[in-house]
């Protein structure tokens, strides 16, 4: 079990637990097409994301942003830097 991130701490989107909210700081995805897709889906700098549901086996994760929900794999969320705000 990894350490829970505290408010104000930085980490990856994949580190959040259900109910936590964080602000996106940067995207590092090497796959350019995927990065483009994530931007299109609204994962831009400064957007606020919260973790809503986690699949029964821990992956993928359902996140909430911009008033809608999106499912992503943990491996893709590792490349998104965030700062916990709630």
């Amino acid at each position, binding site marked *: 079990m990894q350490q829970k991130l505290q408010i104000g701490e930085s980490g990856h989107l994949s580190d959040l637990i259900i109910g936590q909210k964080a602000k996106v700081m940067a995207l590092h995805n090497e796959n350019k097409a995927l*990065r483009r897709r994530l931007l299109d889906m609204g994962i831009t700098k400064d957007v606020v994301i919260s973790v809503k549901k986690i699949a029964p086996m821990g992956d993928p994760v359902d996140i909430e942003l911009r008033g809608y929900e999106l499912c992503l794999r943990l491996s893709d969320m590792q490349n998104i830097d965030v700062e916990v705000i709630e």
Partner: protein
Amino acid sequence: MKIALIGNQNSGKTSLFNLLTGSNQKIGNWPGVTVEKKSGYIKKTEHELIDLPGIYSLSPYTNEEKISRNFLLEEKPDLIINIIDATSIERSLYLTTQLMELDCKIIVALNMCDLLEKKGLTINEEVLSKQLGVDVLKISALKKKGINELVDFINKENFTKKSKQIYEPTIEEAITEVSKNLKTDNKRFISVKLLEQDEDFANKNLNNAKVSKNIKKIEEKYSLDTEQIIASQRYNFVEKVKKACVIESPKKQTITDKLDKVFLNKWLAIPIFVGIMALIYYLSVGIVGTYTVDLVDAGVTWVSDNVSTLLTNWGASDWAISLMCDGMIAGMGAVLTFVPQLIILFICISLLETTGYMSRISFFFDKIFKKFGLSGKSLIPFILGAGCSVPAIMTTRTIEDENEKKATIMLTPFIPCSAKLPIIALFATYFFAHSWLVTASLYLLSIVIIIISAILLRKFIYKGKSNTFISELPEYKLPSFRYVARDVFEKSWSFIKRAGTVILMCSIIIWLLVSFDWTFTYGVDVNDSILADIGNCLAWIFYPVVGEYNWAVTVSAIQGLVAKEQVISSMAVIAGLAEEVTEGALIFSSTGIFGFFNPVSAYAFMVFNLFSAPCFGAIGAMHREFGSAKKTWFAVLFQTGMAWVLAVIINLVGSLIMLL
């Protein structure tokens, strides 16, 4: 006018298309139902309406999204109806900001307005319209509200389009400067794409010194790349628009969230899934199967007897009576027997699709499937494949990664489709006490084989790392009775139609080949018939599978290529002629030509038919998706090889166990 329907996935484009044109295109409650463009005419007008696959952005990510973008750029519709899911307006409007950059009129159709209240949202469409500079109309495709108003509005052909500043001044200036040098349509759109360094446009010689100069200027100012800045500023604009026209009241926990607490629960999710799948097959093959098969069978026998008596009274010749009863009626009857079971199966699949549960299955199985080199999205074709492989293979287009997609195309036919169900039902009910358990075991086997094959394929043929999984969980919805009924009717009717056309044709041919010998003498012993000789040439292939050198089994199994249910139809015709019986249950009578079957060889034969090359229809679908004859041949040989090896192993091991 040529009108394009554009919107996010699962925003209700096809529902609106069906309402406007009066057609019956397939809809569902999961992202990616539509993978091809479809066109029709709006009722009582001359306007052509084109339904396109759902997109999130005009930067396409998958192939079917490219269809939508290319249509907009190359075919230049006169009007775009941008359908928006009012309950996720922010993401939807992001696409709108891109459509606004095209040289094309737009109407924004705010769909799912009936759900706003439940979500605690109010949208002021007049403010929205003013903010966007285009016309906005509220509709509900589900409740059929606002549709006439939409048509009236289109007919007036008086559309607003005011240009809006979306970005900060630095970028707006750059766009103006770049577009001055362009001599194309859609100047603003292409300028933005050039600044974003979109590959499709960067290579088209539209590039000039102005572009790179401006990119440098922007990136220096924001210390981020243009792609990120433009996406960010689009969303900033959308946020501003949303703030102006949407009132949000504090959120309550929705029914969907409550249901997901159960259906996506750590401990309950898998048992519930297994339970649901077991229930589907228990209902269709178990309960309903046993009751209805006998009933329909009795009906077929009754028809056959009466026709026979009637023809005899009319003084018809022996061969004519035999052609009618042993050929046509027996052949068609053998497959029609299973219609009630298929109806139950089709209802169940339709419910999985429309309630929104299917997307959950792909969500929680993604982790397992990733390990085997597939995506959670592969599960959708696999589930739909239980109905028919052809549409199932087409839905593989929503899988992002090419190699994952190819592996899924090849493995989808391994799922026992509805046409294979009659084969399974016939053998399982006759040879085993608990037929639904045997059926379940075959489905389990097919899952195991899919997993093993996936690992093999991804390791040796379709190599590459597992890619990504980006999806959405649609809201749970109560299934619409009308939709389910129509869907089930269409599928069942196409099965019945096949019985009256392809199966009937084949039955007549089989009857001819089995009633005559090479000198065209009628009424020979079936073992001396033309068909027997043909079958005997190839019977060695099936010797290891069924443990018997039998021509009749051989020719029947090969006919599975035409349609899988033809296997049992052929068996019924041959058995009928050999035995002077027409009833399906007597196919396996101990003195008959198929009397040698025992539980072990029956299981092996079912396995062969289940995994071997699918019918021509599905092979055609595979060919379309692979886009290569070589790959299709490889798939067919792989499937058939796999089927044969498996069946032989089962027959050998099973026979050994029986001896002990």
